[in-house]
């Protein structure tokens, strides 16, 4: 099979399996043991794990470094890169270094604004945006050229990911933005956490109608709700998040001890529907600070064992 990067994710998707990806946030320090522990929960349960890059603009161990620990531990990383913290020189240098060390997936993101984090006075770089980052990684891979046009001595072959938020207004623009990311060179898309199934159905349908799902693998994002408080917070405080009232009602409808279980049940039902949905190639599980529950969620969602490819 013709491979762009040969990453495990690419092989799983190209073999036609329903992909299952996870997420690991690097530590707020050099606590390698804590990182390895998180990785151990995901290993064998997901096809690869996103390694976040100074997520919510808080300083953490760098994404590439944590990705290398991931490789050492036997879990394939998806190296996240945000446009907030680096200019195009630093980005390309990091991409070369990451690839040389065996990293094969990259996720190109704008990044949360620096004012949300622990260094709100930092200068946001935004030399290029996420669309231009996708384009740059593709040009490096397919043309063997740096953004500035010079030849690369041994180009990095990365499987290129991008994010999509199918819920943000203007809704009619969302699919055009997806089309733009596909044109820029995205190979796979991981979406914002999905709670509004009606809306994602519409979005996927439009992507199908425009022929986009034949050009890009789409993995909707799943984050199980741990509590009613979390659901309310996601609904009211997180920009760009769409949490329908039914979800909150359902969580409120069970005893307090069983809320987390209900959250996992909802997530599993969503995954079941996605398995059957035309145009969906897998799901991306973001179990934030809940890594130890990933094996259970994977089991209950019928995702185990992961395919050998």
């Amino acid at each position, binding site marked *: 099979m013709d491979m762009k990067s040969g990453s495990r994710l690419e092989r799983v998707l190209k073999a036609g399996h329903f992909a299952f990806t996870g997420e690991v946030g690097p530590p707020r320090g050099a606590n390698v043991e804590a990182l390895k522990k998180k990785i151990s929960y995901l290993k064998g349960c997901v096809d690869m794990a996103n390694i976040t890059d100074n997520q919510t603009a808080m300083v953490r161990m760098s994404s590439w470094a944590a990705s290398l620990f991931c490789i050492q531990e036997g879990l394939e990383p998806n190296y996240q890169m945000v*446009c*907030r913290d680096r200019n*195009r020189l630093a980005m390309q240098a990091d991409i070369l270094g990451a690839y040389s060390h065996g990293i094969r997936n990259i996720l190109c993101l*704008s*990044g*949360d*604004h620096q*004012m*949300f984090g622990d260094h709100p006075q930092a200068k*946001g770089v*935004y*030399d*290029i*945006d*996420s*669309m*231009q980052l996708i*384009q*740059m990684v593709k040009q490096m891979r397919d043309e063997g050229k740096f*953004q500035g046009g010079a030849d690369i001595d041994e180009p990095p072959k990365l499987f290129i990911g991008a*994010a*999509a*938020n199918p819920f*943000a*207004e*203007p809704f009619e*623009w969302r699919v*055009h*933005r997806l*089309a*733009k990311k596909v*044109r*820029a060179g995205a190979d796979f898309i991981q979406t*914002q956490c999905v709670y509004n199934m009606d809306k994602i159905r519409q979005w996927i349908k439009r992507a199908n109608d425009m022929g986009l799902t034949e050009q890009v693998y789409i993995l909707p994002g799943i984050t199980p709700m741990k509590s009613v408080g979390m659901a309310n917070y996601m609904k009211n405080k997180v*920009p*760009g998040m769409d949490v329908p009232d039914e979800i909150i009602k359902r969580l409120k409808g069970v005893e307090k001890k069983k809320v987390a279980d209900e959250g996992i049940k909802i997530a599993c039902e969503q995954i079941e529907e996605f398995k059957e949905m035309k145009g969906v190639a897998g799901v991306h599980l973001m179990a934030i600070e809940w890594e130890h529950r990933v094996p259970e969620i994977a089991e209950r969602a019928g995702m185990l064992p992961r395919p050998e490819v």
Partner: protein
Amino acid sequence: MIVAERKPFEEIKAMVSGYKKVLTVGCGTCVAVCLAGGSKEVATLNAELELALGKDGISPGAATVERQCDMEFLAELDPLAEQYDAFISMACGAGIQFLAERFPDKPVFPAVNTSFIGVNLDVGWYEEKCRACGTCVLGTTGGICPVTMCAKSLFNGPCGGTNNGSCEINTDQPCAWYRIHERLSAQGRLEQIMEISPANDWSNQKPRKIIQPGYEERIKALQG
């Protein structure tokens, strides 16, 4: 216009303390319009200085020129300059630097923070509109600047944080890309943003000079 904000008095006081003869120089153009550094604000600052430092024998002088960003107007200060041992400038950063260049042997202290290139929303109310990036794209973005009005200066927005018309940073801040979409859609020009906008040329990362066409010879002669 260029919009500025007066610095806190304590900061100005700390800079000038120790100098007996100080001339406060206002500017009659942008900073006068935005109520930060015109002749009125010069008078106010001087009154504050006198109140706070008068007991130390400091009595600041006042002068406001038409534009501090123009040597012709700064030349008006030449006869006054020798009576003073320091200047306070209430002009924008360009004016302050030009004043310092005119009188290189005297300290020049800024009394304002130059904030942005912006517009008048109402008396005393201004909004930033331009970052002088040097590569204007307003023609394709419906007349809304993505560099200035988008908190991440995205050229292919909106980002995932766009929040029902607001920017992720604040519900009071409109999302620039939401508005760009709205305006282009109303004009039937959405195709303007369908194509990927390429990486920007950040020419504002180095000191810039411009010579308008037709003036090259004159400037060559001036530079000897």
